[in-house]
């Protein structure tokens, strides 16, 4: 049985439908990411789970109980806000102790628990600092400690790493992952960053325009996209519309507008249809000749350090090719092979 469930939850702000008929289920100890572009309704969904926003319809179920009308202070959830939202008039200790005080813990128990949680987030010794005396990364750790201290039933995180610089973000991402795993805490993690979602989650729910368009493991979301949105939003995808000519097992033959016919794998999550989309990610494209190949001209070369990225003009289709070493130059002609097991066909 799932620990937390949303059933057909809808929320409008005036004419804007922020969340539309969203249903999802999170199992105990599971980490679920809500992944989608800015404005797709992730935060609103999270706020509905927290009880900070009342849905227009639908229900929130926690341990089998309908908590849609329950105020946030009675839900026993923890939340980490995008801008940390630490209370500026309280020290680190008081920020972390707050939830425990609200639950009526005894003084010694509070001191012990705060110490424990601050150790977990590697902030021991910072107890008497004020939030303004901390770096962004440290503030985020305090926010996490504050949310975790009362051992909430569910941890809600809204883009917790988005205000940090790239390097710190990656570092914290790994640390966060090991903390969440070690605590086995049920987590709903909101992000627009697919790498973050992939690295952290057991399951990802991809949202678009207020709806959940696909839910699955990171591998399923990446390899078996359910529709053109997921296919193009996840990975560095190039999508070419075409028509599906024939299906042979898991492979399909698609004809592109320029008349070229290519073989590619049909996504398991998307039933084959005549109107189809060929999704080409860089890993599906390599230099070579023969079957399933295209004639290309190099239109741009970008040196990225650990690799080189080429923009190719291939019989009317734009492709990206990656190479560890510089092997082509702009204007040069080359043939590329499309790997039929890595190119994906989805219905549109």
């Amino acid at each position, binding site marked *: 049985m799932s620990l937390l469930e949303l059933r057909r939850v809808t929320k409008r702000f005036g004419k804007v439908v922020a969340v539309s008929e969203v249903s999802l289920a999170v199992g105990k100890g599971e980490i679920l990411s809500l992944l989608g572009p800015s404005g797709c309704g992730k935060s609103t969904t999270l706020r509905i789970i927290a009880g900070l926003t009342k849905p227009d319809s639908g229900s929130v179920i926690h341990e089998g109980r309908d908590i849609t009308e329950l105020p946030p202070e009675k839900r026993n*959830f923890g939340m980490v806000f995008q801008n940390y939202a630490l*209370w500026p008039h309280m020290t680190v200790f008081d920020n972390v102790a707050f939830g425990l005080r609200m639950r009526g813990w005894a003084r010694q128990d509070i001191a012990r628990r705060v110490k424990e949680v601050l150790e977990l987030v590697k902030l021991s010794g910072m107890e008497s600092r004020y939030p303004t005396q901390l770096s962004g990364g440290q503030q985020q750790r305090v926010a996490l400690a504050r949310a975790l201290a009362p051992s909430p039933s569910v941890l809600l995180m809204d883009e917790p790493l988005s205000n940090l610089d790239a390097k710190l973000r990656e570092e914290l991402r790994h640390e966060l992952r090991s903390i969440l795993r070690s605590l086995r805490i049920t987590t709903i993690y909101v992000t627009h960053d697919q790498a973050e979602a992939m690295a952290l989650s057991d399951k990802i729910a991809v949202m678009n325009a207020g709806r959940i368009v696909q839910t699955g493991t990171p591998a399923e979301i990446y390899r078996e996209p359910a529709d053109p949105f997921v296919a193009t939003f996840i990975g560095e995808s190039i999508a070419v519309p075409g028509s599906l000519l024939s299906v042979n097992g898991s492979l399909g033959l698609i004809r592109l507008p320029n008349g070229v016919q290519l073989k590619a794998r049909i996504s398991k999550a998307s039933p084959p249809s005549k109107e189809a989309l060929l999704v080409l990610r860089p890993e599906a494209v390599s230099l070579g000749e023969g079957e399933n190949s295209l004639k290309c001209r190099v239109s741009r070369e970008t040196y990225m350090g650990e690799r080189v990225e080429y923009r190719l003009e291939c019989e009317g289709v734009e492709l990206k090719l990656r190479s560890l070493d510089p092997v082509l130059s702009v204007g040069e002609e080359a043939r590329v092979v499309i790997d039929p097991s890595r190119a994906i066909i989805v219905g549109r």
Partner: protein
Amino acid sequence: MLGSLLVLPALLVIVLLYLYPFGLAVWISFSGEDGFTLEHYQRVYEVYWEDVIFTFWTSFLSAVIAAVLGILIAAYLRLGADDPIKSFINQLYRIPIFLPMVVVAQMMRGFLAPHGTLNMALFNLGLSQPIEFFDWKGLVIGFVWKQAPFMALIILSGFLMVKDEHIEAARVAGASDLRVLTEILLPMTRNTVAIAFALAYASNVATFTLPYMLIGGAKPTAITVDIAHRVTFFGDWATANALGVVSFLLVSVFAVFYLREMVRRGVYER
């Protein structure tokens, strides 16, 4: 150099219009037939000391009650659900702020009279004797009626500076409305509340119409009534000024705090 020249006119106006009359009043309060004297202060002590104490505690008590009510109104407007009742109250509560004190005093006379609205209501609840409200009770009720909305307005402006996120974080962490108020809103707007309190208290000390119309010359009464009495019936500016200086001292305790905070961080915190 040019900078100081430019502020000179402003400085001159302040000195001429504010400091000079104030200094003159203080001067007169210490001047007798033969130069410096404390006799006016002695009269204040002998005749009016009871009124000085009365003015202090009625003003202070009213400001405390008004602060509590103002905080509750502001908390409701900040934390309550957005519904028609809230928007109605949000409009309604400001009305007393714009009523002149003399109008409030007139209303209070009707409301608090021996056969006024309040006593009739109490009579209907079973009280046999009407309560005499034309003393400190009426004064406090009038002050609170006038000041609570004013304090609510200022305190609400402070509460609105507190970010939603800070309130929501507290809610998710398990804080009820009351705990949000006492743990987040009030500590984060301490100075705004203190300033609202100081302003209300100072304005109570300085009010003439309400004590004049409710209590008049009966004892004890407010310093302002004594000052008017001293001037109108005795032409005694010296004692009136001494009383004025005393009421200034009553206020200045809080005024000092007010000015210090104004200079230190502007009227509103972060």
